[in-house]
Structure formats: structure tokens, C-alpha cells
């Protein structure tokens, strides 16, 4: 089902490696409340979504979220959370 592109969504230029910061970022990505878990929720909840167009939307959002290898994490999770909140209202 997936295909991917060999490029980043946003250019990254790490000037100063920072292990402590990396630890925070990796947990935001793969941790218990991370983007990876969120994307899996989007991609499994879509199967029981009663509105067809929203099931499609959940698929597209789930894919975008799983693509966030580099990110301003708090901003991304914030906007995606807001988006899904709006849908389910």
C-alpha cells in the first residue's frame, strides 16, 4: 500500500548535535504518546469510521503523521490533534 520518496519534507541542517534533545525528540516520535502511535491509531480507527470521506481522510492523515521523520513535534501533533478534534465534533 505504501510508496515513499527519497527526500525529507523539510530540509534539516544539524549544526550542533545534542544527545539530550535527541532523546526528547525520539520519544515524541516513537514514544508512548508519540507520532508513530498516533499514526497507527489513525490507520486502525479508519476501518470503523462510518463516514467514507472521513475514512479516506484518516488514511491520508495517518500517512502524513507516519512520515514525520523530522519535525517541530509539538506543533505537528497539536495541529493534527486539532484537525481530528474538529472532524469528530
Amino acid at each position, binding site marked *: 500500500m505504501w*510508496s*515513499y*520518496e*527519497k*527526500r*525529507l*519534507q*523539510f*530540509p*534539516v541542517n544539524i549544526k550542533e548535535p545534542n544527545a539530550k534533545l535527541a532523546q526528547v525528540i525520539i520519544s515524541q516520535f516513537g514514544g508512548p504518546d508519540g507520532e508513530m502511535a498516533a499514526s497507527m491509531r489513525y490507520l486502525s480507527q479508519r476501518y470503523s469510521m462510518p463516514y467514507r*470521506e*472521513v475514512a*479516506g*481522510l484518516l488514511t*491520508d*492523515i495517518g500517512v*502524513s503523521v507516519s512520515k514525520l*521523520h523530522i519535525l517541530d513535534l509539538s506543533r505537528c501533533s497539536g495541529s493534527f490533534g486539532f*484537525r481530528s478534534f474538529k*472532524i469528530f465534533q
Partner: protein
Amino acid sequence: MGSNKEQLLRDIGIVDFVLTELTLYLDTHPFDCHAMEYFNHYNRIKHQMEKEFSMKYFPLNTRMAESSKEWRWGMAPLPWEGECG
């Protein structure tokens, strides 16, 4: 030369951002002709840029991986190796 590669990748990223957001909008507004025109326009541009990049540097996806002497897709840098933007 090197900056052109980076510039092209950057431009692709910008257009792709537009397309990603438009996709989500169109998912819930499937009959918005104006938005579809917008989508088609940027989709064409992105396709063109991807083709240009793939011919000059390395294939960005497997659909553009046509190779003869060496498997260009496999030889291309991986996204986390620092050469993909």
C-alpha cells in the same frame, strides 16, 4: 551546482506541502472545483520538478527509477544520510 540540487529539493518540498494540505481539504470537500484546479496545477508542477530532479541527480521514487547500467534507486542516498534535503 550543489546549491541547485538543494534548491530544487526545497522547491519540491514547498509544492509538496501545498499538495499534502490540499489533499486533506479535498478529502472532505470532494466537489470543490476551485480547490481541484489548484491541486491539479501544483500537482503538475511537482511532477515536472520530480522528473527534472530524478534525471539530474537520483530517482525520488521507484516510478522514476528507470536504469540501465546501475540500479539508480538502490544507489541513491537514503533520506537520513543528509543528501536528501
